[in-house]
């Protein structure tokens, strides 16, 4: 009886679950859109196929999370409306995923840094007490694991490649490092979800992430820059200038021709 009461108290608020699904969907959508930008520009044909597949996986994942977010919020929106008709300030993605692609080293390193976090997060959610979350997490997990494998092999290849590839990988790490802290920032939402026994704290993923990426850096022969102020704010809608440009392209068709289907 006491247990049942405690469980009832601990049940997470629907609005919190919707917000979490939105975060997951926004990360996947924005990064998927970034990969779409590589199509036609990747360094080799095989990499064109790789980035377009990464984009497909992520946009497919975004659709699942945003559909869930839309169902939970119950405001008559759907995944398409959430993707195409929200303004910049309503997006809750991490800043790391909205950064422009720069070169290939930056792209694959970003994919590695994000994918290890992404995998840890969905591994945790696959055990979530809420079936809707657990089934989406279990569904995307094999793909996310594959992403980590792919990105990991590229980090090693560039780090251990030529002088130029090594230099570019190190430069990418220097640029990206300050966006990694945001993945592990706890806020009111993650704190409430953790208290409800729903999901681990964001900070709870940090040690495993650091251990895994640290081992890879060592093998690739690169070092993160000295710790400095991490840049955060994406989760509460404080974005850089880049997201607006990305959304302008992503949302153009629905904004110009509302309700258009094709």
């Amino acid at each position, binding site marked *: 009886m006491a247990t049942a009461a405690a469980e009832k108290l601990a049940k997470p608020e629907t609005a919190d679950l919707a917000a979490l699904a939105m975060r997951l969907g926004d990360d996947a959508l924005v990064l998927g859109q970034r990969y779409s930008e590589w199509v036609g520009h990747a360094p080799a044909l*095989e990499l064109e*196929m*790789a980035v377009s597949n990464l984009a*497909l996986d992520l946009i*497919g994942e975004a659709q699942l999370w945003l559909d869930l977010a839309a169902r939970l919020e119950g405001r008559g929106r759907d995944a398409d409306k959430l993707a195409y008709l929200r303004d910049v300030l309503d997006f809750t993605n991490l800043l790391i995923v909205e950064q422009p692609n720069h070169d290939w080293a930056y792209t694959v390193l970003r994919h590695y840094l994000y994918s290890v976090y992404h995998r840890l997060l969905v591994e945790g959610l696959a055990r979530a007490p809420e079936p809707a979350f657990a089934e989406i997490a279990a569904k995307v997990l*094999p*793909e996310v694991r594959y992403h980590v494998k792919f990105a990991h092999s590229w980090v090693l290849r560039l780090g251990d490649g030529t002088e130029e590839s090594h230099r570019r990988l190190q430069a990418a790490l220097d640029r990206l490092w300050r966006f990694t802290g945001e993945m592990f920032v706890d806020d009111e939402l993650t704190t409430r979800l953790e208290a409800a026994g729903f999901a681990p704290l964001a900070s709870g993923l940090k040690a495993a992430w650091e251990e895994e990426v640290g081992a890879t850096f060592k093998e690739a022969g690169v070092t993160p820059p000295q710790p400095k102020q991490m840049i955060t704010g994406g989760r509460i809608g404080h974005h850089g200038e880049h997201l607006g440009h990305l959304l302008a392209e992503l949302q153009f068709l629905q904004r110009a021709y509302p309700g258009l289907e094709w």
Partner: protein
Amino acid sequence: MAAATGTGTGGKAAAAAGDAAARVRAVLETVMDPEIPVVSIVDLGMLRRVEQGADGVIEVVLSPTYTGCPATDVIRRLVEEALDEAGIRPVRVRYELSPPWSTDWISEEGRRKLAEYGIAPPALKERADAPVACPRCGSEQTELVSAFGSTPCKALRRCLSCLEPFEHFKCH
């Protein structure tokens, strides 16, 4: 007597539902994957079950393969069209995520057809690290060219014996 009649009718209804499921299944065996037109969606293990919805409509429950596979929506339409063509209507096609589809669900028949078509079939998950044999010459001396191929389900490999490039249905 009434009870016996009731049972009899129930038995008939169950048999009819079973017949409908068998007919649906037979039709779905002719619905090919749009990207790999030699394997049917049944071969791929996408058909989860056929059931009767609360409203009496026949429901076809499918497993989506890869999350972002653009064929998912096409397949839904192909299934609806094929069943309509066969006079089976009304039907509802529904995707169910859990448990997640795995390449382990691809039938023996499906694996054989993939290999004949030139696509190395996926190993069972427990043997995921087994060498990938060339579907043309059978050599196990092959190398990975790209982790991703022309569709999300495939990787690109090359045979070091006959030198032919080929696709590999990734173990998933």
